[in-house]
């Protein structure tokens, strides 16, 4: 029997792998005067951009399909790979359709890249979005609200629609619908991983970072309906959680390799940027939708290596994720030279050791080409979970 989801997945893959961002140029043709706004990963308030009529376009570098030549000449060897392929794409014109690029405060690399962008591509607006690391509404909340207003004003000056409460409320509602569908997709993968592989869920989520919430929701609905019709039966795989690659992305082949090594990836943080706020954004509890957006970031933000831990216990969120996903073990998959992920990792490993959760770790860069050692390591890890795990 033919796979009912094959065509949708092929379309998603084509979108994700298009390094020319043709759909952005197409979108601009059908939305004359509207802005396309690129943003670096981890977190950017996409509903705000959509409320101003902009298309948010996440930038994840060039993956393993891009020869980086000029981009390499801007970065020393000990800096992660994402910025060099991002600069390469910029220099070869792949981002020409973008009117602005937002750089969220993720790490020193992305921060400095915002300044490089100002000098390299002065035609585009390079906006540094300083996300608060103080999570009290009166302090960090007030600061963040000002940052969002500043972003809205900059985009308006570039030709975007002015930000209105009605438009923002509607955009938040569309985002909530998209998130509910992503939750549904996550549940399928968690409960019936043979029905939707992690590599497929990855395409579904990542494609959404290039689409507006409404279009993404429609695609997700179609995909969910189709995977429900898939025949199949459980594999005897180990259930693992993969964490640490929330910015620079592993090559798609590496995700497939982990699966082929006998691991069901039942949850991950590959597309954390799209899932950086947990649960619905409640507009009805606040005086304005902007306040709701601010509060969601402060109170419902997903813990990540880029976000100050505050008073929380380190690794608490990871243990919750493990319990929710019924995972047997954790694979730390961090990009080489990714300071936030690599500095976080020993603390998280300690939490797992204390909780008796097995783990292993792999480093990659987006253009890693050798998967066999990973396959062997993950295969051995999966076997050990099945042989000596708690299942």
């Amino acid at each position, binding site marked *: 029997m033919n796979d009912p989801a094959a065509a949708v997945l092929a379309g998603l893959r084509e979108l994700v792998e298009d390094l020319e961002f043709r759909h952005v140029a197409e979108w601009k043709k059908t939305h004359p005067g509207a802005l396309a706004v690129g943003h670096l990963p981890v977190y950017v308030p996409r509903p705000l951009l959509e409320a101003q009529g902009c298309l948010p376009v996440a930038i994840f570098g060039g993956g393993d399909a891009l020869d980086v030549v000029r981009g390499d*000449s*801007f*970065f*020393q060897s*000990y*800096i992660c790979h994402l*910025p060099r392929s991002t600069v390469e794409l910029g220099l070869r014109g792949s981002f020409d359709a973008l009117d602005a690029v937002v750089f969220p*405060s*993720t*790490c*020193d*690399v992305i*921060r*400095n*890249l*915002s*300044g*490089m962008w*100002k*000098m*390299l591509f002065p035609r585009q607006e390079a906006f*540094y979005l*300083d996300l*608060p*690391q*103080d999570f*009290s509404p*009166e*302090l*960090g909340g*007030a*600061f963040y609200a*000002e940052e969002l207003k500043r972003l809205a004003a900059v985009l308006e000056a570039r030709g975007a629609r002015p930000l209105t409460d009605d438009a923002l409320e509607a955009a938040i509602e569309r985002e909530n619908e998209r998130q509910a569908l992503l939750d549904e997709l996550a549940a399928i993968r968690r409960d019936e991983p043979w029905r939707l592989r992690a590599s497929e869920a990855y395409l579904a989520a990542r494609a959404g970072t290039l689409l507006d919430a409404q279009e993404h929701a429609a695609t997700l609905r179609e995909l969910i309906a189709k995977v429900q019709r898939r025949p199949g039966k459980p594999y005897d795989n180990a259930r693992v959680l993969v964490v640490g690659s929330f910015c620079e992305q592993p090559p798609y082949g590496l995700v497939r390799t982990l699966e082929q090594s006998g691991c069901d990836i039942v949850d991950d943080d590959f597309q954390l940027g799209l899932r950086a706020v947990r649960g619905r954004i409640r507009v009805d509890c606040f005086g304005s939708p902007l306040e709701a957006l601010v509060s969601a970031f402060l109170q419902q933000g997903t813990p990540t*290596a*880029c976000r*100050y*831990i*505050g008073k929380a216990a*380190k690794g608490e969120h990871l243990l919750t994720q493990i319990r929710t996903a019924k995972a047997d073990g954790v694979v730390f998959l*961090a990009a*080489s*030279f*990714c*300071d*936030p992920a*690599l*500095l*976080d*990792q*020993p*603390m998280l*490993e*300690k939490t797992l050791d204390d909780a008796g959760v097995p783990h292993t770790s792999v*480093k990659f860069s987006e253009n890693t080409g050798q998967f066999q050692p990973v396959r062997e390591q993950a295969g051995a890890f999966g076997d050990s979970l099945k042989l000596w795990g708690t299942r």
Partner: protein
Amino acid sequence: MKEKSQLRQKKMIADHFRRLADATSNVVYTFVPGNLTELLGALGLLPVLPEINALQSGMRGKSAGYIAEAEKAGHSEDVCSYVKCDLGMSLKGNVGPTGERLPPPNALLLSYTGCFTFMKWFEILREQYKCPVTMLHVPYQADGTITPQMRKYVVDQLRREVVPALEKVAGRKLDESELARRLALSAQAENDLVAVWEAGKQKPSPVDGYFGGVYYVGPIFSAFRGTMEAAAYYSELRDEVEARAARGEGPMTPDGPMGPQRFRLVVEGPPCWTSFNDFWSMFSREGAVVVASTYTRVGGLYDQGFRHDPEHPFESLADYCLGCYTNHSLPARVGLLEKYIREYGADGFLINSVKSCNSFSVGQLQMMRVLEERTGVPGGFIESDLVDSRYFGKANISNRLQSFFQMIEARRARRSA
């Protein structure tokens, strides 16, 4: 022979570490950029600066062992060597640079200025020491200015969160008049320090603004800003520098008093601490004097007009934190370097790019291109690390420097031809 100010500084540091070892007061660990030393001092708290301990360990040849210890404990070789050196030191008993044991922190003051790694560093220390952390989030000057919103955010955090948290650690209320007194002393020291920096504009320069400069900033970057000792130190240092300038003498180097100054350089980036004297000699033996550097501004850009202000204590603490060098955007950093190159009459600029510090290093290759275009002055680029000696290739760096000096000479010859 050491000058009086050097002996004074040595005693100040020794006394500080003795106070720490005796645990006469509660101790707060904090970072150099955006430090709030006057506030800690006004509350009777003693600061410990892990970066300073790490660089001291590097200079004393201890960092390799400490880094190995941290890597054995699971820390990646990819990450900042300051962090690993500090962790290794604490895993080995937390014996400080003077050989005395450092007390564990009563609190961690995470002044999050210009470096994301700081945040992770103190999360790691929090796990280790199980002590409270106070976060001060300092926004980045991405557009090259301090906006009223940024200042208000920092001031509000100081008043509502940082001060109450530190008062709890100190067991007493903040005396704002004592804070103001200390800020006035800071401004006095800052005036003298700026005079020392600006002496680098003279020919010959009586100072080395990088290798010598890191000693000059020792007190003001560490535990002493806002103290009488620091004010006395900088007054004495200024007198010494002015006397040297009057005599037409250059700075002291590892090989003795500097001879004829053939090259005037501006340097961007931190030094390599594990081979500090070797590195310095590669310059001084060639007659290269560093007339200005950006590393010596990570703890405050005083020469661009900022002074701590006793009349506006919290606002000036906020502006200080916001204004540290690595909290500036890349275009602003290029602008500052360009200014130094022109104002200090430099005939070359050099970037020492360190593996550990993305805050400094990302974008430096582009900075070099832009600076060369704007100034026409040749730029050099070398790579090393802060305290990981595995990344200091002596022969390679020496060769590159030789080529760089030859390039300056060739340009000079072309101009005069």
